[in-house]
């Protein structure tokens, strides 16, 4: 292969692809061809860079120049200026919100600057469909090291000493889980390793990003895990909503098999292991381990009581070790660099007690009303404030932060006062939320906490399997109560009733989905009780979200009479002539908000 002088890393993550990054790539290739640069310049589609909010993204290496929000029509100029003449194009460089100056180098951008990459170590640097790219970045070195120079017990000991805890949400120490699986009696010695790639939490997409950007790191982690545990077969359960992830896994599996990294006699070491991929079919509850295993068996994803753990009797009643994508992706660097390297990052001390702290890094997906939405990997123990303001660039549109929600439907909403909380498994749980799979949703003053709690309960109501009474009926009744609060028909005592139902669910629901389901409600009651009370007592929604409690009005000062709102209104509640003030008839208005979205002058207000 000829050495290329420039490498154009085009982000081909789902976010950038939806912003037409593949068209940008095609345009680049055409232009490069036109200028006769094909021999010197390589265009590489990479996995997600994490900075999805500003996609499509192009990184020019070795210069390290970071371009954002490119359109195909920008490309001819860019190629001529940068590739031919070596002048970075100013107007496509990153500009921090609220500032004028640009930041040309990726490494200087605050969003990337504060991150520490372990699970995402290859992001943006490799073509996920090429095993060669992975190998070039020390890929499969950890597997080779484990298989040739370490005994299974030694591998296990390293993982235990690293203090790695399950990245799927529970934070169970991975080493302990591996050890229990290894020790569990199995008649014919059969044991499985399973990768949970059923990322169901709304607002979380780190697993998707890892699989799409670096599928081999998950496979390598599983190979190492299988070796340590003594498993001969692995399973990957991928969400069906992630077709690209499935495709990348299949390509990676085939490449690994062809290269002798999977299958019989891996790397000539005599160890054999292979992986089978299953597709989920759209069920949040299948992220729960017993439900996932039931689904792998071809059954409906209903959880069972875990009084006998899945590490003893899991898939087909065999000892099964289930870890999520991010956990598996963390394993190869730990083996390669050692447990001490890993424990340098993070909080607490895990040398005596595996629950004593949170080590390493965690990937969070930043979403919501924040300037820099995207995926970030940060060391455990970083404060929420650093994540939201330093990396996330603060709140969009100059609004005030109201709450940070972590942990998806099982987590909770934390108020501004807790922004200096050091993020790790235990502090978040203590604050009434949880780490979850790493979703971090930032809400501003325009978000109603009651509505948001109702949203999660509504979500869970549809996603619960419906097997046990507390979860099924509890969610149904909570939803009913929250709905009536949002409709302005709340009653005194509703908050207490919600708390009572929550207590029952926490104590009596069958699986973690049910026992953690009240968290969004309890945490919002705990930190935003006054909003509930306002809804109930004053019939007021301060954020202007709850339909029944608001009216849309036209701000006479701002209305330019453009008629956009009148045309958008589906019920013809808005009247007004061109260039004259428009009026909303509150009796006709069904509060759909179409006018609010349509108006470009901020002239529609919610009261």
């Amino acid at each position, binding site marked *: 292969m*000829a*050495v290329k*002088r420039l*490498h154009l890393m085009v982000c081909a993550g789902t976010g950038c692809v939806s912003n037409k990054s593949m068209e940008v790539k095609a345009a680049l290739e055409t232009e490069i061809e036109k200028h006769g640069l094909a021999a010197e310049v390589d265009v590489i589609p990479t996995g997600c860079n994490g900075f999805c909010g500003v996609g499509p993204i192009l990184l020019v290496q*070795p210069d390290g120049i970071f371009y954002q929000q490119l359109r195909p029509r920008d490309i001819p100029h860019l190629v001529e200026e940068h590739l031919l003449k*070596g*002048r*970075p194009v100013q107007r496509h460089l990153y500009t921090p919100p609220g500032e004028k100056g640009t930041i040309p180098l990726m490494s200087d951008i605050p969003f990337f600057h504060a991150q520490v990459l372990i699970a995402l170590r290859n992001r943006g640097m490799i073509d996920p469909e090429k095993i060669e790219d992975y190998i070039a970045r020390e890929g499969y070195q950890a597997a080779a090291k484990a298989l040739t120079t370490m005994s299974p017990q030694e591998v296990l000991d390293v993982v235990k000493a690293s203090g790695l805890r399950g990245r799927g949400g529970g934070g169970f120490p991975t080493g302990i889980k591996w050890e229990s699986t290894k020790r569990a009696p199995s008649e014919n010695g059969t044991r499985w390793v399973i990768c949970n790639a059923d990322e169901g939490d709304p607002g979380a997409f780190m697993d998707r990003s890892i699989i799409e950007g670096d599928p081999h790191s998950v496979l390598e982690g599983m190979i190492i895990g299988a070796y340590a545990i003594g498993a001969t077969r692995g399973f990957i359960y991928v969400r069906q909503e992630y077709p690209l992830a499935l495709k990348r896994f299949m390509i990676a599996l085939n*490449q690994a098999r062809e290269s002798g990294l999977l299958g019989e006699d891996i*790397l000539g070491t005599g160890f054999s292991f292979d992986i089978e991929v299953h597709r989920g079919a759209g069920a949040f509850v299948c992220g729960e381990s017993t439900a996932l295993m039931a689904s792998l068996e071809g059954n409906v994803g209903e959880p069972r009581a875990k009084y006998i753990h899945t590490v003893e009797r899991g898939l087909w009643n065999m000892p099964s070790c289930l870890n999520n994508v991010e956990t598996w992706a963390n394993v190869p660097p730990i083996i390669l660099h050692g447990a001490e390297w890993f424990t340098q990052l993070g909080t607490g001390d895990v040398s005596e007690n595996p629950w004593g702290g949170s080590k390493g890094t965690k990937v969070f997906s930043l979403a919501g009303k924040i300037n820099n939405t995207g995926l970030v990997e940060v060391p455990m123990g970083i404060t929420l404030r650093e994540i939201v303001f330093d990396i996330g660039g603060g709140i969009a549109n100059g609004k005030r932060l109201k709450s940070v929600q972590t942990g998806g439907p099982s987590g909770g909403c934390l108020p501004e006062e807790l922004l200096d909380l050091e993020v790790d498994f235990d502090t978040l749980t203590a604050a009434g939320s949880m780490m979850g799979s790493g979703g971090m949703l930032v809400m501003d003053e325009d978000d109603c906490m009651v509505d948001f709690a109702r949203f999660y309960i509504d979500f869970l109501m549809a996603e619960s399997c419906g097997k046990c009474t507390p979860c099924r009926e509890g969610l149904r009744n909570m939803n009913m109560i929250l709905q009536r609060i949002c409709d302005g028909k709340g009653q005194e005592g509703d908050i207490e009733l919600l708390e009572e139902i929550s207590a029952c669910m926490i104590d009596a629901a069958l699986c973690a989905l049910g026992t953690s389901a009240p968290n969004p409600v309890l945490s919002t009651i705990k930190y935003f009780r006054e909003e509930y009370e306002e809804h109930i007592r004053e019939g007021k929604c301060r954020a202007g979200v709850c339909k029944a409690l608001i009216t849309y009005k036209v701000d006479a000062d701002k209305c330019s009479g453009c008629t956009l709102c009148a045309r958008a209104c589906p019920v013809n509640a808005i009247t007004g002539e061109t260039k004259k003030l428009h009026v909303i008839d509150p009796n006709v208005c069904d509060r759909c908000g179409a006018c609010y979205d349509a108006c470009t002058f901020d002239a529609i207000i919610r009261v």
Partner: protein
Amino acid sequence: MARLSVQSLNALRDQLQAERAGREGKCRATVIVHMGTCGISAGARQVMTALLGALEERGIADVAVSSSGCAGMCSREPMATVQRPGEAPVKYADLDEKKIVRVLDEHVIGGSIVKEYALAMGSERAG
């Protein structure tokens, strides 16, 4: 791809890493060929081609080759700037295919400046 053993995995990794050094942004030196209209008309394109050819011939992957616009001294084109980490950049002028290869061998690889072709130390600011 053939089935790998531990040895062949390491060998493959080394080979692939060498090929991809530029992608990582890791390089022992950067050579910027000035390719403004003046430079190109004076033969900067040929200089660039010769440089890339020489690099490939020598199997060197960790030298970043870049281009820039007019350096302002159109009369002395083709020009190139060689920058080694931790050292001041050196500008060469009046280059041709042979001279650039010598610069590559002696300065970029060897580390000693080719005084005959050198114009100045330091560089204009990018942008």
